[in-house]
């Protein structure tokens, strides 16, 4: 009977030690990639801009400005991927100021880039995925709507940083609404 006890207690302390070591190694691995610079060069270009005034059918049913943008995205994200990056969640967002709201941000398009897929993006004539409704009429005549491409780094284990690409483009919206044209 005494022999069984020491075997069990040995197994117990070995198990506890293994767990602690594994936790420390995981933490060490996380730390090696936690402070890496995840930025990358981005080039954006806008080819078509259209402005309409429509009842916001996606939410509050008030007549709001609705923008349509077609754009090109060029980004080289090869350096952002490493062993601890599972995927990048890319999103193109428009930021602007209006009379009623100091900060407005709308995500127009997003894409999931898994590790293993082609990290060089060269997309042309991309239409916005989500409706660009303003909270009011702030897009009409707005000369300073800035488009940027950002991404969230999803690791296997570790921090979830949000990084904004270096390229940005300013979109000037027209002063009047399109009535008939379809996008």
């Amino acid at each position, binding site marked *: *009977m005494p022999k*069984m*006890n020491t075997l069990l207690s040995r197994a117990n302390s070995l198990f506890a030690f293994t767990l602690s070591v594994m936790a420390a190694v995981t933490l060490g691995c996380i730390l090696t990639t936690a402070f890496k610079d995840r930025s990358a060069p981005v080039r954006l270009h806008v080819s078509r801009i259209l402005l309409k005034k429509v009842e916001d059918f*996606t*939410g*509050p049913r008030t007549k709001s400005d609705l923008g349509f943008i077609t754009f090109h995205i060029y980004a080289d994200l090869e350096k952002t991927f490493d062993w601890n990056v*599972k*995927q990048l*969640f890319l*999103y193109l*967002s428009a930021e602007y100021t209006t009379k*009623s*709201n*100091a*900060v*407005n*941000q*709308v*995500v127009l398009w*997003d894409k*999931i880039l*898994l*590790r*293993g897929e082609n990290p060089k993006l060269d997309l042309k004539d991309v239409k916005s995925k*989500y409706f660009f409704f303003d*909270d009011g009429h702030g897009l009409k005549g707005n000369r300073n709507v800035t488009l940027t491409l*950002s991404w*969230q780094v*999803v*690791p*296997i*284990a*570790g*921090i*979830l940083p*949000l990084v904004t690409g270096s390229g940005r483009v300013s979109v000037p919206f027209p002063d009047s609404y399109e009535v008939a044209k379809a996008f």
Partner: protein
Amino acid sequence: MLSLDFLDDVRRMNKRQLYYQVLNFGMIVSSALMIWKGLMVITGSESPIVVVLSGSMEPAFHRGDLLFLTNRVEDPIRVGEIVVFRIEGREIPIVHRVLKIHEKQNGHIKFLTKGDNNAVDDRGLYKQGQHWLEKKDVVGRARGYYQENRSVEDRNCKLQV
């Protein structure tokens, strides 16, 4: 046979040793509690570590993965961030990404969320008549992630898709 040995040990202990063992156990429990409460204070969130419950954020987060949250109210809410929010009247918090924000000069913000794996935004999940979320609905923001072990096939299949 082992259990009998253990009981014999307990009987052999005098009162002082028994109290010591109970106190020892109490110390371990309080230390664990202190660490948890300390985490709550540092992160500012009432649940600093949460488990992902649904598949609405796949392929980034799968059911069973761990998320580490902070809830610093001074940090402005911006698109792309992953927020954990609770809808009024519902118990279970939801972990989704911010899709749209409109913030006024005085700091009052209203925002819209969407799960990465969902085709539409979350307006269908909000309360009847509710179109936006506000700061008060936010329980925390996801800052860290730990993937629960998955089989090698699972990882490889996802890469080939």
